[in-house]
């Protein structure tokens, strides 16, 4: 019952989010700020994680295909596949759910408990539209760029790991990466990411906007938002995988 109430309230919020901005000039200003806050500031962590995850995947694959009957280029092939299909979109989204999600909930939640949201509403401003729409657009625009970077660095990380550990040769790896290349898996990955980006912004925004109380409640709401965002991403990941690949 309670869950249904929240789901309903969440969709009602989305209806407000997608109204036309009251003032375009203000919207553009907000958008650029959000691209910086939600996007550019996540570049470092995304790059760092992708690179090392790519390295780990290639080392693990290399160690599990020690048999002389399995060609070494499979390492490149497997790394490319797992990075593009799963690690880049899902891993990055979970990380962003933590980083960006808690930022969104706590910033909107703080505005709520310090009456800044009331101050917006009093002026006749639709606070949800004003605060959330630029964040949604920023994420939908910028997170695909992050994904492309993550894919590239993941595969690069796998190769560098090979160079360092000498578990496989560069030629084999690069051959494997390009083997049986199917553009659909890239598309699939971007579709997933766009859905996740939407969730990463809107669920924390919902939790932030409905906070009641003080600083403690803002903290609680942030934790809750991160948990729910991650759960929803994992579930959606399952269904999307089944729908798009099954």
């Amino acid at each position, binding site marked *: 019952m309670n869950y249904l109430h929240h789901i309903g309230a969440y969709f009602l919020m989305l209806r407000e989010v997608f109204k036309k901005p*009251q*003032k375009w*000039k*203000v919207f553009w200003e907000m958008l650029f*700020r959000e691209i910086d806050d939600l996007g550019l500031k996540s570049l470092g962590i995304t790059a760092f994680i992708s690179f090392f995850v790519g390295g780990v995947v290639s080392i693990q694959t290399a160690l599990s295909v020690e048999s002389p009957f399995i060609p070494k280029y499979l390492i490149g092939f497997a790394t490319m596949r797992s990075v593009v299909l799963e690690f880049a979109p899902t891993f990055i989204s979970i990380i962003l759910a933590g980083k960006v999600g808690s930022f969104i909930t706590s910033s909107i939640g*703080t*505005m709520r408990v*310090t*009456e*800044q949201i*009331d*101050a917006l*509403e*009093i*002026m*006749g*401003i639709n606070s949800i539209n004003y605060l959330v729409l630029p964040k949604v657009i920023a994420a939908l625009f910028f997170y695909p760029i992050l994904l492309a970077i993550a894919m590239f660095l993941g595969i690069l990380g796998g190769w560098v790991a090979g160079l360092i550990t000498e578990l496989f040769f560069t030629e084999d790896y690069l051959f494997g990466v390009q083997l049986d290349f199917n553009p659909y898996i890239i598309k699939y990955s971007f579709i997933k990411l766009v859905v996740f980006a939407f969730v990463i912004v809107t669920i924390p925004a919902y939790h932030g906007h409905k906070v009641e109380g003080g600083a403690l409640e803002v903290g609680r709401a942030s934790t809750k938002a991160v948990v729910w965002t991650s759960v929803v991403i994992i579930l959606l990941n399952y269904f999307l995988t089944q729908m798009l690949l099954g």
Partner: protein
Amino acid sequence: MLEVKDIYKSFGDFPVLKGISTFFEKGKTSMVIGQSGSGKTVLVKCMLGLFEPDSGIISYDNRIFKDLDENERREIRQEIGMVFQGSALYDSLTVEENVMFPLKMFTNKTRAEMIDRANVVLNRVNLVDKNHLFPSELSGGMKKRVAIARAIVMNPKYLFCDEPNSGLDPKTSIVIDNLIKEITQEFDIITVINSHDMNSVMEIGDKIVFLKNGIKAWEGSKDNIFETDNEAIVDFVYSSNLYKKIKQAHLKGL
């Protein structure tokens, strides 16, 4: 005139307002007073439409708030200035940007015009050379001034102030009180102030509405608050020793 008729508001099973009726006039500083928790903030938020009253009517110069659609409500809201209990300045904007914000949102002024207007109101509240500071860099009194400047930047017809001098020292309180009173007279607007500070009440209370246990227990002006023998208000006013002494002096004709 701003009218409130028979407002009821509960949270769950807990009634906060139990049938409040009163009215507020132009050019006068009206004050809603009462103990902490008596429902002052809830009443003001009902008037502003931030809370939907369970029943009752709020009417802004004969425009009945609950009968208006969302667009008409927005129009009224653009005629309202509000100073929140905690100032509610936007953390991410500077003083100047905070004050300019309503202009940016609702007018087509150029940036230079907006800055000019912001400087006019910032001067009006005696806050100069602070334009580029962020709210976190201001003292409580300065924040209140910025909040007042932001509230009046659009030339409102209605000004609401929720405890404008909470957390301020007595001297600064008086300055802020007088500022609000002057602005009210200067622009001939309807001003409603929430307060539990008897000093402000005696300083600027043209009309006083006293709330207790969710009802209006007394109504009058600062001039007849000493004459009344209404127990509730007497009890409230003289909970401070200073005022006991003032009343004794008053009765002795001093």
